[in-house]
């Protein structure tokens, strides 16, 4: 039946399209689908690679996480980190995009655009090292705050249980806002100028124009960017790993850092795979909403 259908299709459209998508499908299968299937397979054993005879345990690794305190702490931290990071990425991104959309001198605009996009260009390792140095207890930020009389003793920004997560979120905001800014800026430049002029004639002030003209027109971009940013931030690993390593204690432990520790510190590859699968499910849910939103009406 399938073959007949294929033959009919081949006759009507030829098999050329399959050759076109063939290489891409092959690459996707090798680089995405196969590793994904392997991760799910590994998650169903007691351990893998480091044991001579892996034993099938079904969903035990997943069930064990429901009783695992570190898993819940990591999930809570992941949610906090994602929500605050994405929220402030949007706020800061929109604010800078609006500022960059003003009719300023062209050279000044180019200069500010270049400066404001810089955090996005740096790799996670560079960002982590920079902020570690800046926020070191004996670093320049503590020194300046001390000179201004705002600190009496050095603050351990990344080493303090209470401050570590807010500091990490701050670094994540600094690194992540340019993506939102650029996307919103592109959207702002697509809004017809006459809608602003009409609003002005109707007597709307700047805030009303922003709320009732700009924001509604940016809604599709905001949703897309917000969902994409949520997906990326939820599974973020390098920045957190290189900045705090999940510490102090478990104060900044997120699902991705916990997965890494299970795999490469404890050599528990099946548990790490189970956790990887859980992250995958979360990300797939976000992706579903993103694709649903992208679907043309």
């Amino acid at each position, binding site marked *: 039946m399938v073959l007949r259908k294929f033959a009919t299709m081949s006759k009507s459209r030829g098999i050329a399209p399959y050759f076109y998508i063939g290489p891409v499908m092959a690459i996707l299968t090798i680089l995405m689908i196969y590793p994904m299937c392997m991760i799910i397979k590994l998650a169903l054993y007691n351990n893998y*690679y*480091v044991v*001579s005879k892996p034993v099938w345990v079904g969903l035990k690794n997943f069930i064990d996480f429901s009783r695992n305190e570190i898993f819940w702490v990591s999930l809570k931290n992941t949610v906090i980190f994602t929500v605050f990071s994405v929220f402030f990425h949007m706020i800061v991104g929109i604010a800078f995009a609006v500022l960059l959309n003003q009719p300023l001198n062209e050279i000044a605009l180019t200069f500010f655009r270049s400066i404001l996009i810089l955090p996005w260009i740096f790799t996670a390792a560079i960002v982590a090292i920079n902020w*570690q140095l800046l926020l*070191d*207890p*004996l670093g320049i930020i503590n020194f300046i705050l001390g000179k201004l009389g705002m600190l009496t*003793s*050095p603050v*351990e920004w*990344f*080493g*303090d*249980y209470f401050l570590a997560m807010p500091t990490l979120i701050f670094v994540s905001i600094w690194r992540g806002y340019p993506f939102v800014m650029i996307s919103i800026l592109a959207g702002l430049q697509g809004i017809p100028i006459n809608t602003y002029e009409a609003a002005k004639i109707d007597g709307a002030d700047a805030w009303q124009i922003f709320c009732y003209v700009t924001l509604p027109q940016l809604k599709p971009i905001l949703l897309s960017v917000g969902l994409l940013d949520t997906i990326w931030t939820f599974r973020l690993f390098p920045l957190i*790993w*290189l900045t*705090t*390593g*999940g*510490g*102090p*204690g*478990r104060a900044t432990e997120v699902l991705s850092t916990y997965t890494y*520790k299970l795999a*490469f*510190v*404890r*050599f528990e590859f099946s548990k790490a795979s189970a956790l990887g699968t859980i992250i995958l499910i979360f990300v797939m849910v976000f992706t579903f909403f993103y694709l649903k939103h992208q679907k043309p009406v």
Partner: protein
Amino acid sequence: MNFKRICIFILLTTMVISLGLFVGGQAATGQKTTIEWMQWYAPHMKKGGMDRILDSFHVEHPEIQVELVTIPFGKMREQILTSTIVGKAGDVLGLNPPWNAGFVDANALEPLGSYLSSAREINPEDLAHAVIQEYKGQVWMVPLTAFPFVMFGNKDRMREAGIGTPPSTWEELKEVALKMTIPEKGQYGYAIGMSSLPPSNGPIIDVYPMLYTAGGRTVKNEMSNLDSPEVVETLKFLKGLNDSGAVAPGLNTMLQTQKVERFSAGEVAIILNNQANIETVYLRNPDLNLVVFPVPKKKKWAYRMHGWMLGISSKSKHKKEAWTLIEWLLTPQVNGPFSELSRQLPGNLAASLDITDPNIAICEYMLLSHEGVEELMLTKQAPASWRIFVEELQKMFADKQDPVTTAKNAHKRWNELFATAE
């Protein structure tokens, strides 16, 4: 007809050439076997030191070509494991004693018992004993170098503070560290590194050597011994030292490498670290007036023994050649110069060293006269265990729990960890 002849001629010529290349290739590869040596040592040695050693090896063993693969220490453990999983680990592996049990359990290492018993160039009895330990009835790694954990002191800072001789007891250490602390100048007497960043090994550097001088151990009968009075006493001392203000701020984020950098920069006057870092300090700040001295004692002179270890990958296709390199490196006539080039002590105690540096001499004195302890080789899940200890110690230094609770909590978590490792 002509066309057919041409085809036959081309075919025959191709076959002859291919056969020639095949035989030639076989002969060439038969003469020389290439082995990979994965390690992190080379950058820590005197400039060109590793090249000189390998050049000598190639002269003596022209049949073996050694390809050096240098990986940063922080990435080494992970690299060995992932390479083993894909079956592509190097032949000779640079190893760290605490990785012993984990790698053996992961089937990453080749047992060395038969190689050692049939060794002709070395006497296994001469190898540093504290770092030759049997796990699952076999020896899996041998010491290329051996060295103690020692105190690094800044002689100039000590002189400025009116301190003539380095501290020899815990009480003296606290006293001198306090004397050398001037926060307004950004100068501190002591530093502790308890960062969560990998390798997150603060406890084994800053706690274990102190504990050994109190006569304590972290593990007893393959179970946690962290609730012992000696551990509690050590934690109380370190907490008190930190609370006194003598310890540089930021210990919960300070990496051991940063500790060495701060010491080299003169910001910190005393640190505890391994002998291998003497070379690092010399390189970072040749003007620093360095004095190395034994870890101040509580009850007895003891030190944490360490070494750059060597092993053979279980996936190696050239195990015989790999052992040839290892055995050659361990021979007294090579091991001595290698140790000198890395400013360490030889793993083969029969090797003679021409020690001119008093800082190395004190390490040799410790090695011969103090008690050397190495517990981590037999500790199951050693890296995971010290990560747990880091978490509990961070809480202690952040005043979230006292030393007694810290020891109790770490003890409980270690036993849970060891139970899962079974």
